[in-house]
């Protein structure tokens, strides 16, 4: 059951320039799963709408959520100032999450690009496959890399070539001659397009997490749609709602 509820900040730190790592105690953690997201509300009343932020990690006892986010505007800048014991209003849990069962006993790529890396942490924890984790960064600020190394073999690509393969995650797949039976990915649109193409060529399934400007977060406003191959079940016009039908889609099903 979705709800808007108060959370309490347990800790927050900057883990790379403009990238913040916040643990929030919240009842929403009870029902959360990998690949879902929450709406975080700024307190400043000039900024009204919930900011959709992916769940990076769910505390083992299901009492807290870890959010790792980049400052992208006034709302996230306000969140970055939150300290231990501060309250924050959350809407959640939202979206469908990754179908990690598809990976059981298979070779899997977990791919994160930039601020798409955080949701891959809980996904890596919950995924039972043979995990190859590909992380794409701009530079040598390798946030969450140490966390992810506990759950699989990590391959890094950096745009500036300072660490790992120079280029993007697709270059890292080629350079390391990696293969997989299924892909889970979150990151910028060019990366997701490349993964969709790669998965089609390889004849494997790819599940990609999409992002779009959102207002309600619960499927009512129809703000965050993505073109779909088939007629969508809600509006019957080949437009799925990213907030409720996604954010995770079978790459075959979406026109990106």
């Amino acid at each position, binding site marked *: *059951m*979705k*709800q*808007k509820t108060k959370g309490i900040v347990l800790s927050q730190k900057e883990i790379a320039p403009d990238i913040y790592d916040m643990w929030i105690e919240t009842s929403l953690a009870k029902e959360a799963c990998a690949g879902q997201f929450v709406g975080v*509300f700024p307190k400043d*009343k*000039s*900024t*009204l*709408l*919930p900011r959709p932020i992916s769940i990076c990690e769910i505390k083992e006892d299901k009492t807290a959520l870890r959010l790792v986010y980049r400052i992208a505007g006034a709302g996230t800048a306000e969140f970055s100032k939150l300290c231990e014991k501060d309250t924050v209003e959350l*809407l959640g849990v939202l979206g469908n999450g990754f179908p990690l069962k598809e990976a059981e006993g298979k070779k899997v790529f977990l791919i994160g690009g930039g601020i798409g890396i955080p949701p891959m942490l809980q996904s890596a924890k919950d995924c039972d496959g043979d995990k190859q984790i590909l992380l794409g960064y701009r530079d040598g600020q390798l946030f969450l890399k140490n966390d992810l190394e506990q759950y699989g073999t990590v391959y890094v690509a950096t745009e500036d070539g300072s660490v790992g393969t120079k280029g993007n995650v697709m270059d890292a797949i080629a350079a390391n001659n990696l293969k997989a039976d299924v892909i889970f990915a979150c990151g910028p649109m060019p990366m997701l397009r490349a993964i969709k193409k790669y998965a089609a060529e390889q004849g494997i399934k790819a599940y990609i997490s999409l992002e*779009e*400007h*959102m*207002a*309600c*977060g*619960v*499927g*009512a*406003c*129809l*703000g*965050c*749609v*993505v073109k779909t191959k088939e007629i969508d079940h*809600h*509006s*019957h*016009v*080949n*437009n799925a709602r990213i907030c*409720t039908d996604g954010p995770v889609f079978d790459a075959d099903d979406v026109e990106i």
Partner: protein
Amino acid sequence: MNTQIEIAGVTFKNPVMTASGTFGSGMEYSEFVDLNKLGAVVTKGVANVPWPGNPTPRVTEVYGGMLNAIGLQNPGIDVFMERDIPFLKKYDTKVIVNVCGKTVEDYVEVVERLADEPAVAMLEINVSCPNVKEGAIAFGQKACALYDITDELKKHAKQPIIMKLSPNVTDIAEMAKAAEAAGADALSLINTITGMKIDIHRRRFALANKTGGMSGPAIKPIAVRMVYQASHAVKIPVIGMGGIATADDAIEFMMAGASAISVGAMNFVNPYATSEIVDGIEAYMRQYKINDLKDIIGCVE
């Protein structure tokens, strides 16, 4: 204590409604709000055929509000009748269907399809959406065009019709009078105010549609003024909306002349807003010993 309101012969248990397009057909928000508690659910606009809407980005935040250019994406009347009406029938609330179209014939088709559906209490005619290029707003910005479409729809509608007015006009009173003269049973206002936002870092419009309709608390004073002007220009009831967030806001609109009110963008900010406003209105009535809520409608002269 009586919170009942009557509009065009339809009795609502209270004046709190949902603004079209912000509440779907109630399904999504029924997880947050007991729909039985609301005066009415006003549905997302429905056309004769499915509409795909505009390209994304469709929404963006602005100071104290938001812009949207959804473009009236909807599944069309067939799916609406099969899925949304049966869903809404389960609840003890009034159903007002928002009707959109590109031509007069489109509107007539939807109005006629709904004519024999007893679960639909009223029709709200959307002649004021700023985000679709054909129809809609074209009927809502000229008094003569508004008169003609109202007059035509009255010939086909079995339920009372509410004409939803655009604030993007020079004289809202003139528009209100035109709709009334053509036989409209009620008015609702304001629809969103056309706005624009530019992303200065990317040198791009924030919305793919370039312009969008502004809603949210920042537009409330404009809406209150227009509700006052429109309701004092006509004898038919007015449903007020535009930035309503709290029971205080709702009461302000009623004092300006609204017989009922709708909550729009604030559903996105506080999904419990409609329910809290119902409670808040009752608390206000107790505080000021108001026995009949109707007594405050237009009480400020």
